[in-house]
């Protein structure tokens, strides 16, 4: 690594990346701790001690918002800023604006999180924050776009690398979804009414909700994968052609799949069927990208045994494959009859969120933080322990929720020979206790792994040197 400090500001702006990574880790610990707490409340409902702000209904949106917008988005901003400089061979465009994104985003998460605890809740899933936050998010997002695309605009390498297509897709599509879904008429600073009502509101919400998962938790993290996996494996992407086809097929087809969240709900049948068909089609680009990633690692197997970062990234691809297979299956209407409204959905989300998003982020951080700190990882052993805790936690979580969800779904639908219900809702709910208990254990395992990561990376960063990386010299671009 070239660490010569120059007098000009031609070095990469990595300080802001470090701060974003640190915040992402803080949010991952907090967000997962809140998740564990709400999981425990479903076993011991008295755990709210009679405080409104500790009540399940307020903590649950806090959990999802902190992990998605705190942990995941901070990690995506950090890695986007890091990789766009290296793939463009120039420092960030408007670094002050990058710092603004970093700080304003963290403030928005803090204030937004407190507002959720206060019960200020617009109620749309993954878009619970009220309208002043929606405006703040839009402003930060536009600044994120300016920094990112500004850096690309002044790049010294003519082709735009594939990771940047995905980060670009994240920025553009999330902006579109967020603005449309958040349209509302304010009543006061803390209350608004959606511009859409009833069935259209549901369709718009799941167009947003599904694609927030699509372009943020899938697409954004594929950008991370396309930069950090080849870097870490020391090998180029297996197929450039496949990455192109998969990117455009993904961008086109994901957006149609939202209505599978509304199967057999009061929306037009053609919308549901189209959503189902497009969900099935989505399997192709999803697995194409997974195959591209797995094939990139093949041949670097020796490294897989010794390098915890690579282990995390490869395992995350396996879970990515699992989740993107399970999703289309659950979108089939006859399967969805059983899975809809059950804990199976929660299990599916977590096989993506823990197995894919969290694991690839952990792998990336184990690679990135030593680079940012200019020294080796504090403890490879701790990282290996973290790997097994994370894997065990994720597997136990998914198995518990499969068990809960499938039995719930089937028991709710179960009729006797004369067509009467076999089981009361109360009895079925009562039978969930062992599964919910297992989930708490899974959460403890996963969270303790995350705490090890936080400790390990904190020790790595402690007393770090200032690392200044200068862009490598490149031949001037030919005129476009």
């Amino acid at each position: 690594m070239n660490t010569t400090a120059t007098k000009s500001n031609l070095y990469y702006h990595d300080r802001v990346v470090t701060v974003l990574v640190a915040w992402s880790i803080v949010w991952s610990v907090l967000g997962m701790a809140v998740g564990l707490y709400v999981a425990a409340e479903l076993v011991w409902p008295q755990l709210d001690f009679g405080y409104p702000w500790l009540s399940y209904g307020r903590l649950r949106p806090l959990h999802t918002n902190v992990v998605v917008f705190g942990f995941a988005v901070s990690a995506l901003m950090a890695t986007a800023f890091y990789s766009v400089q290296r793939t463009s061979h120039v420092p960030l465009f408007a670094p002050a604006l990058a710092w603004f994104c970093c700080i304003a985003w963290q403030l928005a998460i803090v204030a937004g999180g407190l507002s959720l605890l206060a019960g200020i809740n617009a109620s749309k899933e993954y878009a619970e924050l009220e309208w002043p936050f929606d405006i703040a998010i839009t402003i930060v997002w536009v600044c994120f776009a300016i920094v990112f695309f500004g850096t690309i605009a002044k790049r010294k390498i003519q082709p735009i690398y594939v990771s940047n297509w995905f980060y670009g897709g994240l920025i553009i599509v999330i902006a579109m979804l967020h603005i449309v879904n958040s349209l509302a008429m304010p009543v006061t600073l803390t209350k608004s009414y959606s511009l859409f009502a009833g069935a259209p509101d549901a369709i718009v919400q799941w167009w947003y909700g599904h694609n927030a998962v699509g372009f943020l938790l899938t697409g954004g993290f594929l950008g991370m994968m396309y930069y950090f996996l080849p870097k870490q494996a020391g090998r180029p992407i297996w197929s450039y052609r496949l990455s192109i086809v998969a990117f455009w097929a993904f961008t086109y087809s994901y957006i149609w799949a939202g209505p599978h969240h509304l199967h057999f709900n009061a929306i037009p049948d053609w919308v549901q069927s189209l959503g189902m068909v497009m969900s099935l089609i989505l399997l192709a680009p999803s697995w194409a990208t997974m195959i591209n990633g797995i094939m990139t690692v093949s041949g670097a197997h020796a490294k897989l045994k010794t390098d915890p970062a690579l282990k995390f990234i490869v395992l995350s691809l396996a879970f990515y494959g699992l989740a993107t297979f399970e999703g289309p299956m659950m979108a089939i209407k006859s399967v969805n009859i059983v899975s809809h409204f059950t804990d199976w959905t929660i299990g599916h989300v977590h096989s993506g969120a823990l197995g894919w998003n969290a694991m690839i982020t952990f792998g990336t951080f184990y690679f990135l933080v030593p680079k940012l700190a200019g020294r080796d990882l504090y403890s490879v052993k701790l990282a290996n322990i973290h790997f097994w805790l994370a894997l065990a936690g994720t597997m136990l979580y998914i198995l518990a929720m499969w068990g809960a969800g499938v039995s719930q779904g089937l028991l709710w639908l179960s009729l006797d020979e004369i067509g009467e219900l076999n089981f009361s809702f109360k009895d079925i709910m009562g039978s969930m206790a062992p599964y919910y208990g297992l989930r708490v254990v899974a959460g403890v395992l996963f969270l303790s792994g995350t705490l090890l990561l936080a400790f390990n990376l904190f020790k790595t960063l402690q007393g770090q040197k200032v690392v200044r990386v200068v862009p490598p010299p490149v031949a001037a671009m030919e005129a476009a």
Partner: protein
Amino acid sequence: MNGLGLHQRLERNAGLLIFGILFVSAIGGLVQVLPSIFQESLSQPAANTRPYGALELVGRDIYIREGCGTCHSQQVRPLLAEVKRYGPYSRAGESVYDRPFLWGSKRTGPDLHRIGGRYTDTWHRVHLLDPRSVVNNSIMPAYPWLAERAANADGDIQLRLKVLRRLGHPYTDADIESAPAKLEGLTEIDAVIAYLQQLGAGLGAEQ
């Protein structure tokens, strides 16, 4: 020009790439979402569906505030077992005054779309204050604070109704004028119960 050549132009020109992503990702929404927003049959109220009264609206907003929708759906699917368990399946016309919709995505507790009239007000009051006193294995949180706060504590009920009127809900001047009086002396728990008790009544004669 082969496909790879075309793509090389896209990936060398940031503007073209941005436009390409926006265009390709917008198609699905334009074809699938936009028509639903303007489809008239989705915004025609069902036979007995009317805008929420002042007390019911306050109750609904509390239901949102407390995140009740994280565990309770309000959407009965057209399946035999669901209709047996909950009542007639949900129609789009019943939700036309729902901003936002509250169909939910998870049933940790039972569906509530046809809960109205199934239990007495007293049952709901006891259940909200101490769920396990009436359902022994319930994992629902208790909501003691609802009985302590006045229904018009926020003091903005007229403003809420005015905003909804601007969004097309047919409230009269008299409705808005009389709204604070309808909340007089009542607590939040009364509002939530009023909201729960009217759920499912919107279907009317179609039933």
